């Protein structure tokens, strides 16, 4: 038999019982749609995180201490036209946490002491007011720039510029509010409070090294254009010299890309996991196909007998029923892709537990779901088909 004759035969027998076919298809449709919807949610999360990190600036590097300390002088040494020509500017941070209060309202925020360069390096704009200036840093002024979320928490939409707040019990004057950025690798950028680096150090409990130098918790480094790798190497070389390192580094230089890669790996695992969970329903759908194929073989025992009497070989009968099963599952798969695309469209922007879902549909997910559903039809169709093929023609013809 040709493939067309097989498909034609399968089509006419599938069409013979519409309700049953429809219900069997539904199992596969739901399975495939679930795989596609969940995987596009996973993909959406992945792209969302990547784009948020990239919004910070793609030519960013982060230097963090690793079993050691970084000092303000380390940060300043990274800007040097001779030793670090690929580094444009740096923005060291001194992080402290703490409660931030306005009158009786209290919120917890990541409080970071920064320099004016921070706004340029990390791509921050103020939504209102001004950013921390060199004069603020020099004079250790008690001024603060609020992240949009912190501002919202404390002031509920009112403009906080010029208002006094308390950070760890010390009075600060709000001079600006940052534009919203969303969450990133380093927590939610919007629930931050920025103060002058010197103020953070002297007033909010900064740490000194044994030699008395000012320590910083993070150095943001902006590379010159695309020269990210060069910038990374230069930073490493300078810091190794300054720290007199012979074997293992006591700091780490991460590029934006390495952060994205690490997070993509995590969210990729999440996506696969979501797909696998949805895949269980696809397997259940496959069992439905097997069930209906077994019923079909029993019902059509006489037909099998007739076909055998007319000269059908075992493999003809096998091919016929396997084709039917695969056609069922592939048909369900195609409809499921349609349903999955609709579902991921509907879920896009859907608010779940306070955060918005983003879904990203792509052809490879659909292709994968189709191949898997066809494979499931093949797998669950083989046994019923083999049972049909093994029937003895005379017994099959006698079957009522």
């Amino acid at each position, binding site marked *: *038999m*040709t493939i067309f*004759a097989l498909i034609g*035969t399968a089509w*006419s*027998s599938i069409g*013979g019982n519409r309700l049953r076919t429809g219900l069997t298809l539904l199992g596969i449709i739901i399975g495939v749609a679930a795989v596609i919807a969940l995987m596009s949610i996973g993909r959406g999360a992945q792209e969302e995180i990547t784009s948020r990190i990239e919004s910070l600036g793609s030519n960013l590097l982060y230097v963090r201490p690793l079993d050691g300390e970084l000092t303000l002088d380390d940060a300043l040494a990274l800007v040097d036209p001779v030793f670090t020509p690929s580094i444009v500017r740096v923005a060291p941070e001194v992080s402290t946490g703490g409660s931030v209060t306005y009158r009786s309202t209290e919120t917890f925020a990541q409080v970071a002491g920064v320099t004016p360069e921070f706004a340029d390096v990390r791509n921050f704009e103020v939504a209102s007011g001004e950013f921390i200036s060199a004069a603020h840093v020099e004079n250790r002024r008690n001024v603060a720039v609020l992240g949009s979320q912190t501002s919202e928490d404390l002031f509920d939409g009112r403009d906080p510029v010029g208002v006094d707040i308390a950070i760890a019990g010390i009075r600060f004057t709000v001079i600006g509010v940052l534009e919203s950025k969303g969450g990133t690798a380093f927590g939610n950028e919007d629930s931050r409070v920025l103060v002058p680096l010197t103020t953070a150090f002297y007033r909010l409990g900064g740490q000194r090294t044994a030699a008395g130098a000012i320590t910083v918790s993070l150095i943001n480094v902006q590379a010159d254009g695309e020269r990210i790798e060069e910038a990374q190497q230069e930073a490493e070389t300078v810091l190794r010299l300054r720290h007199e390192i012979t074997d293992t580094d006591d700091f780490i230089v991460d590029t934006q890309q390495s952060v994205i890669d690490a997070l993509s790996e995590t969210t990729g695992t999440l996506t696969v996991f979501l797909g696998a969970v949805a895949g269980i329903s696809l397997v259940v759908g496959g069992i439905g196909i097997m069930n209906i194929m077994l019923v079909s073989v029993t019902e059509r025992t*006489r*037909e099998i*007998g*007739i*076909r*055998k*009497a*007319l*000269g*059908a*070989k*075992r493999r*003809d009968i096998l091919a016929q029923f396997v084709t039917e099963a695969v056609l069922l599952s592939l048909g369900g798969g195609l409809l499921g892709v349609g349903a999955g695309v609709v579902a991921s469209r509907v879920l896009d922007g859907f608010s779940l537990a306070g955060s918005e879902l983003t879904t990203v549909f792509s052809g490879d997910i659909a292709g994968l779901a189709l191949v898997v559903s066809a494979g499931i039809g093949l797998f669950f169709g083989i046994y019923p088909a083999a049972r049909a093929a093994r029937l003895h*023609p*005379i017994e099959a*013809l006698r079957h009522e």
Partner: protein
Amino acid sequence: MASVIEVTDLRKTYRLGALNVPVLNGVSMSVERGEMVCIMGPSGSGKSTLMNIIGCLDAPTSGSYRLEGEEVSRWGDARLAAARNSKIGFVFQTYNLLARLSALANVELALQYGDRRNARARSLQALESVGLGHRYKHRPLELSGGEQQRVAIARALVKNPAIMLADEPTGALDSRSSAEIMAILQRLNRDEGLTVALVTHEADIARHTRRIVSLRDGLVVSDEPVAEPLQAQAAEGVSA
């Protein structure tokens, strides 16, 4: 030239649990090209079993079966299927048509597993030769019993088989339809030289053939030519 069918000392024993049930106890007979032969016998005589073995639907326990000179009795499933497809035209008592297919598609089914060249045209031609050329679109349930059996004959005919085997072909039909069927079989045998072997337990059907082989308890008890075969009256629309 070899006989179309030649069976020698054919035996078939069915096993029912611990019990051995002998059905054929050494049948020997042959059918020559162009013959129209009837196998008769009461129920349990083994005539259907013999028919199934001749039709390559079943294998004998022992003995020899030559189909057009080829020893068939030890063939496996695939070769038997191929023989059923190309050499045997089967007609059953209960027609065995697929209800969801049209008459034409039922006839074409016989060509699906073998030589598919001009399948549609050949199938239409076969339907025309049994007088159903105008009803090819109808499904079995829209046809009378006699018409359904004529579709089944067309299905057996379309492969141009070496022999047509008919197992009680008129068993489910009234006498008028039975006469139609016998007329068609007689005409195919006479005009086209088709070799026909049919099984029946009705004596007047048997007398339409030219030779009667009688079976009893799995043995041939008589094998005689029919002195004056009856000529079935052709029905309207069927050219006799």
